[in-house]
């Protein structure tokens, strides 16, 4: 799977993502600067975590206006895969590629710890290597991960079975319906707050995150 990782100023988990891609895909991802206006031929676009534009206006709001995003939207429209993690998830919601929004954590503090997630469905390109209902570990590290959507949108996400992951034990950031990650309608776009890319090596404490990338490699 040909992969590109978008680099917005202030993004800081692009190296983590590249490590995960190398481990599962056996190939080097391309790094793509946000001022580019076209994407090379790619199967998967990844928007990694960080603080694009310092989170100064609203997390992801400025990155969503970057020149590259028109090409990302075209990639989405043609059915391409997109993975947005943490700030990447925020950027996807700001760009309108996923519904909802990520608000300040309920306790108004940055939260960095391992969290447990329930895998809600396994018939997707992102989750095929997990078991249905399985609980996995993933580190989270964010100040704005409180998923919010109006009741109609939540009902749509639930009704269409578009929840990818839910917080299994503790919903620390206050997310609606314990939502940690969601799919687009066509299941080709995944946005989630925790960081599977930081748990792909037993040395770092586990490999629960690696199966997400193994799933993509097999897609």
């Amino acid at each position: 799977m040909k992969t590109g990782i978008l680099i917005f100023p202030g993004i800081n988990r692009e190296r983590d993502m590249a490590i995960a891609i190398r481990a599962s895909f056996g190939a080097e991802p391309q790094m793509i600067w946000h001022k580019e206006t076209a994407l090379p031929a790619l199967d998967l676009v990844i928007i990694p975590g960080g603080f694009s534009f310092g989170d100064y206006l609203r997390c992801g709001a400025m990155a969503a206006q970057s020149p590259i995003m028109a090409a990302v939207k075209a990639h989405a429209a043609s059915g391409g895969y997109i993975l947005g993690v943490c700030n990447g998830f925020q950027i996807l919601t700001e760009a309108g590629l996923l519904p909802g929004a990520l608000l300040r954590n309920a306790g108004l503090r940055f939260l960095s710890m391992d969290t447990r997630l329930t895998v809600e469905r396994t018939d997707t390109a992102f989750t095929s290597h997990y078991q249905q209902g399985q609980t996995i570990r993933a580190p989270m590290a964010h100040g704005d991960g409180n998923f919010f959507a109006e009741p109609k949108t939540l009902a749509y996400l639930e009704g269409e079975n578009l929840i990818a992951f839910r917080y299994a034990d503790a919903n620390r950031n206050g997310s609606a319906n314990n939502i940690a990650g969601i799919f687009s309608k066509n299941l080709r776009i995944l946005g989630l707050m925790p960081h599977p890319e930081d748990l792909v090596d037993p040395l770092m404490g586990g490999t629960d995150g690696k199966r997400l990338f193994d799933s993509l490699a097999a897609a």
Partner: protein
Amino acid sequence: MEITESLAKSFGLNPEEYDKVLSIMGRLPTLTELGIFSVMWSEHCSYKSSKIWLKNLPTTAPWVIHGPGENAGVIDIGDGLAAIFKMESHNHPSFIEPYQGAATGVGGILRDVFTMGARPIANLNALRFGDPKLPVTKRIVDGVVRGIGGYGNCVGVPTVGGETNFHPAYNGNPLVNAMTVGIAAKDKIFLSAAAGIGNPVVYVGSKTGRDGIHGATMASAEFDETSAEKRPTVQVGDPFTEKLLVEACLELMATDAIVAIQDMGAAGLTSSSVEMAGKGNVGIELNLDAVPQRETGMTAYEMMLSESQERMLMVIKPERAEMARNIFEKWDLDYAIIGHITDTGRIIVKHLGVTEADIPLAPLADDAPLYHRPVEYLPKPAPLGEVQDPIGILPALEKLLACPDLASKRWIFDQYDSTVGGQTVKRPATADAAIVKLEGTAKALALTTDCTPRYCAADPEAGAVQAVAEAWRNLTATGARPLAVTDNMNFGNPEKPLVMGQFAAAITGMAAACRALDFPVVSGNVSLYNETDGRAILPTPAIGAVGVLQNAAQAVGLALQPGHHLILIGETAGHLGQSLWLREILGREDGSPPTVNLNVERQNGDFVRAEILAGHVAACHDLSDGGLLVAIAEMALAGHTGVTLTLPAETGAKTWFGEDQSRYLLAVPDPKTLLSRAQSAGIPAAHIGHATDDNHLTLPDGAAIFLPTLQAAHEGFFPNWFA
């Protein structure tokens, strides 16, 4: 403004120092010149009280590439790589404005490290706060923790370790000591000595504003009730710009454009330009009209003394200037050629067609004040006599684990991103030192900060020995080979002989310990005048230390697991003087602190490390604050595993809570062979217990406590405080 002795005094120059300025200049200085002298000769920049003592520290070893004198220390860690690191204080600003004070402390130390060509891979923080019962302490803790997180999380450097203590001596003067560790190719280290007559001097990063003017001078004075009025001298951090600066600088450093580079830290443009030109034995001419400015109508004085953050000064090859500009413009950073290198040996500052400063560099550096301040030493404290145990062992354990100094710091480190970078092998509180792997290699660095200020207050020399030894021990307890130290010397007013005596004694202790343990000091920072209303902090020589593991997979943590047996390494005499048990249970802070026999330290540590690297040890924890039983409980809690103790037979507080040094607990699957190897090596070792599945900590006499009870006590302090 008229230049007078009294103006000079308000800038922090005493009458003798002002006379020196007059004699160097041969005329009245301009305001800008006076400002330059005052910040360069401030304690913060000149080390005028500490320099004569600092030279007693050992700073060399075959693996030291650059010791003190550069922006940070550089050591060879093999495979063509260098570790670059330093610890630096931001104490005074953090008291005045905790969030920004701590945030800019992190920003400043990051710049010291990436200035030298390193990608920062880890941050640590050594924090000391006042009495938790005071509302102001809570406000400061909250602001400092948010500030450290707010900056480090955004820049994307994992905050992986540190320490936090509380003591009323820090009520008006918290300590925020930030450490950054970076990695570079050892043949691509960037230094600050300017060279090349005519080469352009380039300013990059944020624009210059009026923030932080005279910050270095503020950091060189005591506090009083008017200190809050000094808030405008605290800078405001912008971690987003810092992140861009890291990436842009590293991109430029991959080329051959840079001749010299230095960050604009304390005393901003003044210290960076003076130091770069001075080290290179050249001159420098600046045209301030070209300095990117955030505010209108700034004067030369303001621009030279501003401590606006996220700025760097470089000397570059003229033929690379255009390429360099393109890189910084790509990252949306200001880039301006603001001067050039000259052969005049002078710093000349021009603004709006007027020469605002023209100072010979050699006397500015060579004639800087250097003080042999009087020292006075307190007699060593008498040893603690016999004491009675008023509450018994397990109640004391529960109380100790809950006290602010020993309580879990989870509430703090859960606000720090400790995993960004994807290389964090041991996260906070899972091992005695943080372990960060070096991407693309099998190696890892072990990182720690240590100091026990109550020991240093009782006996500064013994306390400093202990601080170095504990850092060495914490690295050893993970399996790492300790390599080098960065020190952050936090003391009171050096003009007081007793404070200067504490400083001198601490240096003597550190020097002895660093020599005995082959643990050179390669960088550091001195923070003096840590006093409020005439009361000094506890002497706090914080030690930051770096060790290396050839194979990251060999690192061990401290979690006890089922099947493990506990082996105690080292002698237990039962030293309760200055112990936490004495303070927390009896409310007393007296007696002599424990002493470290450096030969024993080395023998015990070398044995433990060899056992870890041979794969015989599943977990390891050093014994420090709270002694044996606290260490056992910490291992049990970390592993959520019960433990039953069969030894020691002695049952008093001395045995369980004494803080004798050079001791470790090993969790091993095979206690017999370990004991026999220890015996052959002449290392004191005892098999004192084993892991259980009953979720209790059980003493040899059968008394037991439920682990979740201990857990609740241990985890409760911070969440309850901030509930």
